[in-house]
């Protein structure tokens, strides 16, 4: 059986780059995360090899088990087993390490959706309504649980995956047009809500005393949309940073520092361990080695290095889609598409954050960002693609 070499090569380069720049990001603070990352990558390759060598079709049988395992994990987060850090419950304490069930839920939901779609034929919306409703429920359950943690960023990677799966399943075009219209309407509603929030903030700021300010209360208690005020603040920070943070030292600090890091890298960068933004701590040390690892790379390697990273991701994702097209059955095609779109979303939103075209959402960058569960899930997901390539049925 022949294997695909393009994606493993991309993964290898990206994951080693990740280790180097995690080391660099923590260099002046003496963190040892790069060693742990090496361990995770080693484990990741083991998981990758295993998943790649198993025929992906087996997951058709076990899809619902994987899915429910992920859901149970998400539910456990809300029990005393869950760990709360920085105001969010995203981890389960496994004594030796913290595990992030969101990653398992992503894999489970993808397999579940792919297996369902592989078994059904989609056509017009009316013909496939029951499937769509079922799919909707399959997605909404983990999304709701993740949203409650709260983790807005991870919640938002699900819909693109779903739409990509529906898209390649040849659902009628009308569905997408309608969805786009509904989505636009949704954006409009959110925009109105955010606008109200901005006015609320101004009203609060105009109150002379602290008592009067607290008397105005929180906007989230009055709004009909189920969003927390900090999430509104984030959106507002992206659309109107001046309003939230006129001096650039508060809510928009990270976004500004990420942009400064990349921009001052220039063509060739400041050199490894020489990036002042990361080394001096302007890029906050809590996030420099995970969500903002790309800023460190952009600062220290400049355009040459950071463009290479984009090229590697583009190549990896495009190759994944190519493999989806090579797949001779619908399940393999769905699986490879879902995985690739998931990576596309992660890589576009995370790098877009540094470039300044997407808001700060806390989405990590596959293979580069530090994080155990996330690294493992990335390897497993890419393992599916390899499996699809290796076990595709070749006719003629």
């Amino acid at each position, binding site marked *: 059986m022949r294997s695909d070499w393009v994606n493993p090569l991309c993964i290898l380069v990206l994951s080693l780059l990740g280790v180097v720049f995690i080391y660099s990001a923590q260099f002046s603070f003496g963190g040892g995360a790069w060693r742990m990352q090496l361990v995770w990558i080693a484990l990741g390759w083991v998981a990758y090899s295993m998943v790649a060598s198993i025929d992906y079709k087996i997951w058709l049988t076990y899809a619902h088990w994987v899915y429910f395992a992920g859901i149970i994990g998400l539910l456990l987060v809300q029990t005393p087993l869950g760990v709360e850090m920085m105001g969010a419950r995203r981890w389960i304490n496994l004594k030796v390490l913290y595990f992030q069930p969101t990653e398992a839920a992503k894999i489970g939901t993808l397999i579940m959706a792919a297996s369902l779609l592989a078994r059904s034929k989609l056509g017009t919306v009316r013909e496939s309504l029951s499937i769509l409703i079922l799919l909707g429920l399959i997605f909404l359950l983990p999304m709701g649980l993740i949203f409650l943690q709260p983790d807005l960023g991870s919640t938002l990677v699900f819909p693109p995956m779903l739409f990509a799966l529906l898209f*390649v399943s040849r659902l009628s075009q009308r569905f997408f047009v309608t969805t786009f219209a509904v989505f636009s309407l949704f954006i409009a509603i959110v925009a109105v809500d955010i606008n109200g929030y901005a006015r609320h903030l101004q009203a609060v700021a105009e109150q002379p005393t602290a008592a009067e300010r607290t008397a105005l209360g929180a906007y989230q208690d009055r709004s009909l949309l189920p969003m927390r005020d900090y999430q509104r603040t984030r959106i507002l920070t992206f659309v109107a940073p001046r309003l939230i943070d006129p001096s650039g030292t508060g809510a928009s600090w990270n976004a500004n520092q990420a942009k400064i890091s990349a921009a001052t890298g220039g063509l060739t960068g400041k050199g490894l361990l020489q990036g002042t933004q990361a080394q001096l701590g302007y890029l906050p040390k809590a996030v420099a080695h995970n969500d903002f690892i790309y800023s460190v790379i952009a600062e220290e390697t400049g355009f040459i290095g950071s463009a290479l990273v984009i090229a590697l991701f583009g190549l990896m994702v495009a190759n994944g889609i190519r493999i989806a*097209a090579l797949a001779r059955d619908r399940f393999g095609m769905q699986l490879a598409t879902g995985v690739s779109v998931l990576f*596309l979303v992660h890589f*576009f939103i995370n790098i877009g954050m540094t470039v300044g075209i997407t808001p700060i959402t806390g989405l990590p960058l596959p293979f580069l960002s530090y994080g155990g569960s996330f690294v493992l899930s990335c390897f497993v997901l890419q393992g599916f693609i390899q499996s699809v390539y290796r076990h595709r049925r070749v006719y003629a």
Partner: protein
Amino acid sequence: MNAFDIHRGDNPRIRLLLLLIAVASVVLLMGLAWQQLIAGRVYLEMEQRQTLRQILLPGPRADILDREGRLLAGNRPLFSAVIYLDDIRPDFRREYSRLLREVRQQLADNELPDYAELQWQARLAVVQSYVDQVDAIAGRQTEFPLRTLIRHFNERLLLPLNLVSDLNSNEYARLIEQLPTQSPIQIHADSTRFYPHHSLAAHVLGFVTLEDPVDDPLMDPNIKTFTFQAKRGRTGLERAFDERLQGQTGAEVWRVDPLGFQDLRLSLIPPRQSPALITSLDLDLQKAAESALDNRRGAAIAIDVRSGEVLAMASGPGYDANRLTPFIPRSVSEEIDASGGWLNRAIQLGYPPGSTFKLLTAMAGLRNETLFEQDEVHCPGLHRVGNRLFYCHNRAGCGMVDLARSVQLSCNVYYYVAGLNAGINAIAAEARRFGLDRRTGIELPFETGRTIIPDPDWKRSDGRGSWFPGDTANTSIGQGFLLLTPMQMATFAASLARGETRTKPTILALSPEEAATRDHGGERISLPASEMAAIYAGMELAVAPGGTGRMAAVPGLRIGGKTGTAQFRADGQNINLAWFIGFAPIDDPHIAICVLIEGERPGQALAGGSTAGPVARRLFETYKEKYLR
């Protein structure tokens, strides 16, 4: 439908996904290129603004010397115990967590401590503990104010924090000896202005105060800049040559972390001291002038006749400029206010010049050809002008008086007649020929421009009505509306000595070539030599036995002089003034002087000869001992 149905490989929607990936990658690449390759400059400035800090280091102020290189103003070290906050950050952290633990134990579960407040509490406690260390060694007790600490954090973070400033030598020695070597407390040596001769030439030298520097050319608006306080000249030479004395400001550029603490020094331009400012003053003459003036209200000036260099310039009463630096204590300020010591009486106040002005009246008459040196006037002790009587200071009358004798005796009647014959316009014109209607232009600040050469036009435009012959008579003897500064009269004496109409005084030492070729901008007096000779002869006689200025006489030195006495209204009271102007040696004049002394009490009898004469004599004596050996 079977899940393993062959899916048709030519799904066009998959190709659309490839396009989406391509678009996404290109968008990111373009964004990246824009940021890193095109818009980089903007972000580079943002980065510099947040990571670079500049420290300006004022240079040591240049010395001020007398013409022979003797120190008039210099610097002395000022020691303070300081600490760099960066060095004690671990202390801050420790104290903060200790306080936090303490406070948490006292608070209920759902209460949150005020973190910012705690932070400041911790910082203050740490700083106070270091202050206490210094105090224990130096034997003081001081409390460090929180306000100072907050201000330092916000505005001067990279600069050393003064724990105890201005240590005396005893405290300094004990600290140096007893501070543990690993202590972050450092002894910082700054310099403060120092005037070794205390009040000597205080008005000429001026003084400095500490100020936050503004508008330094080194200040980059894009870089936050910290500055040590700079010394700014407030008056005198310190003010007039402030920029020159300040020297070259140095600068350090530091890279800082997000909290603003220093990380790395990127560059250092050391400050540079400018070469010393060499004044024209002669320390010996200056000392003589001041000791003779003896803190009385008045001024004494000596000018080099040829070059216009001011050899001595004293104004009384004086003050010790050391007491005004680095800042002016209120009590000292009030003391100087009460004595009237702020004023440099040599240049900042116009006085009626009295009889010293008669020399000018004489020259006006000679030039106008209404006066001739051989003409004699009979002085009966008084003179009638219109229906008013004008008296001579010698009520008994001076008898028959010619030009030389009129100068010797300072006969008023002679000058009433001469002045009335010449007319006010001729007198005023002659005064203007000698440049007495304008500032002398000496390089010192605040020279007054409110001096008066009166004439009918001036009187009318000043709203004082029309001009009367009595006004002319008063002006002829240097009274009435006339107001001139001692420096103007000193330049007049020098001009007269040189036989020219102008003397441009300077407070800076000139090179011998400059001194010899200096152009004062005037012309020859160009009156007949015999007539000028009569004036000079009269001046020499005035300083001889029988002359009004005999008390200025110095054996072995031929001096030409003219005394004067005048009345002056100050604070609504009549104050008498004693004047002396003169020069020596009379056959080859080198030094010209002007002395003015105000009466201390209203109505106090003063005469130019007896009050100002001895001061003049001290100046001539010193000159003779030093220059005519």
